[in-house]
């Protein structure tokens, strides 16, 4: 235990405040990533299922790169890419944007495959019934197919979303002061591991909250099978 508690001089309330501030930043990464990746993933999945072979191939490659390389490298590539590729001077303001871009395009790839699994599991009969009942292609998807897809993919989505919460800590590789980065800094200053313990608790509570909300969402759709 001494490694955890020894030698600290920072007041606990200050530590909580600092980590809380980091938590807000982690949550903003989380929220913005979902905001962009959820719709983007849907469009990627459409491309992936497209009859256009070029589009389909491009999406396949995109998904394979996003899933086949570490998110941390993608963060670095998005942030430093403009410099390495074009010699552009990226300045300071790009850091957070880069994080959101990297997270969004990475998660969109995973979401796309989840959407695809859901959409492809729908029986053709649903499309045929909708067509004969006069639904247009877009309302067939929006009113008939997509709600059912959401219900089917919700468990795998919950998994991804919870992984995302923990993945936000990867933003430390761009030194963005999210919670894990702050925890590391306090730990270095305090020369103990107490901040990690607190950070773990924060992550856990946030995860539990998200898991609870997803469960509620799942229940709200359990009225049909």
């Amino acid at each position: 235990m001494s490694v955890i508690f020894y030698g600290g001089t920072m007041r606990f309330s200050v530590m909580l405040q600092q980590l809380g501030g980091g938590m807000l930043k982690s949550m903003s990464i989380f929220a913005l990533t979902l905001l962009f990746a959820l719709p983007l993933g849907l469009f990627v999945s459409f491309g992936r299922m497209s009859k256009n072979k070029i589009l389909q191939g491009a999406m396949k490659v995109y998904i394979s790169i996003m899933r086949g390389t570490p998110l941390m490298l993608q963060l670095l590539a998005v942030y430093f890419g403009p410099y390495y590729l074009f010699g552009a001077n990226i300045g300071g303001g790009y850091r957070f944007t880069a994080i959101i871009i990297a997270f969004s395009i990475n998660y969109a790839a995973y979401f796309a495959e989840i959407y695809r699994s859901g959409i492809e599991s729908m029986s053709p009969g649903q499309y045929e019934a909708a067509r004969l009942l006069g639904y247009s292609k877009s309302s067939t998807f929006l009113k008939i197919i997509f709600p059912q897809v959401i219900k089917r993919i919700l468990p795998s989505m919950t998994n991804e979303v919870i992984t995302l919460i923990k993945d936000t800590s990867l933003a430390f590789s761009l030194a963005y002061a999210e919670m894990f980065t702050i925890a590391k800094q306090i730990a270095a200053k305090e020369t103990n591991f107490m901040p990690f313990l607190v950070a773990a608790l924060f992550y856990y509570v946030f995860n539990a909250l998200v898991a609870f909300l997803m469960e509620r969402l799942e229940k709200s759709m359990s009225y049909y099978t």
Partner: protein
Amino acid sequence: MALLEMNHIRKHFGGLEVIKDISLKVNEGEILSIIGPSGSGKSTMLRCATMLETIDSGEIIYNGERVAWVEPDGKKVYPKGAKMKEVGSLFGLVFQNFNLFPHYSVMKNITDPPIHNQKRGRDEVFAEARQLLKKMGLEDKENAYPCQLSGGQCQRVAIARALALNPKILFFDEPTSALDPELTGEVLKVIKSLADLHIAMVIVTHEMNFAREISDHIIFMDQGVVAVEGSAHDVFNADHARMQAFLGKLQH
């Protein structure tokens, strides 16, 4: 003038020709049954009539207007956009597997298409839907979801859903094949009761007694061609080896 005419229809899947030059005609209010062994092309004929499948040659005429055909050079001409909507509103289809929307209540399954796709008034549509449900013996199931219903009840909802769009012709694709025998009766009873509505019906079925009783005209299909056709009496008493073999098999 016939409500539906299908002339010289051909359809193949891969190398397999499922329909080999079939023609049929349905008049307003007429009930046509299509019978025949599995794989004879009955369901494909319905799917061509409802444009779920495209034909490889021939023409489809609704209300005297040619709406789909194949040009001599093989080009398939099908209606698009508003025209397709207009043609589509003439017919409805009841599926073997119902294909109800599981996330919609019974009421919403029936009322959403007229409200959303035909832009009809909500009150009018709801009133009509309640009448239909009563006719189907499901007046207490308005708020139920498909998963809470028996197969027979689901199929009756599916029939109500198709009727709510006021089609001129209703196609039934083996409407009782997915049902337990004890549930078949209730669905057949409902279909019989539709005769008063005076809409044309085309029914693909294996229920011979039902077909004999209800049909104005019967087509016996075998291996992609019309083997026998005529009135119920003519067809069931026809001196046709395949036909008799088929009936014999069913009776065992």
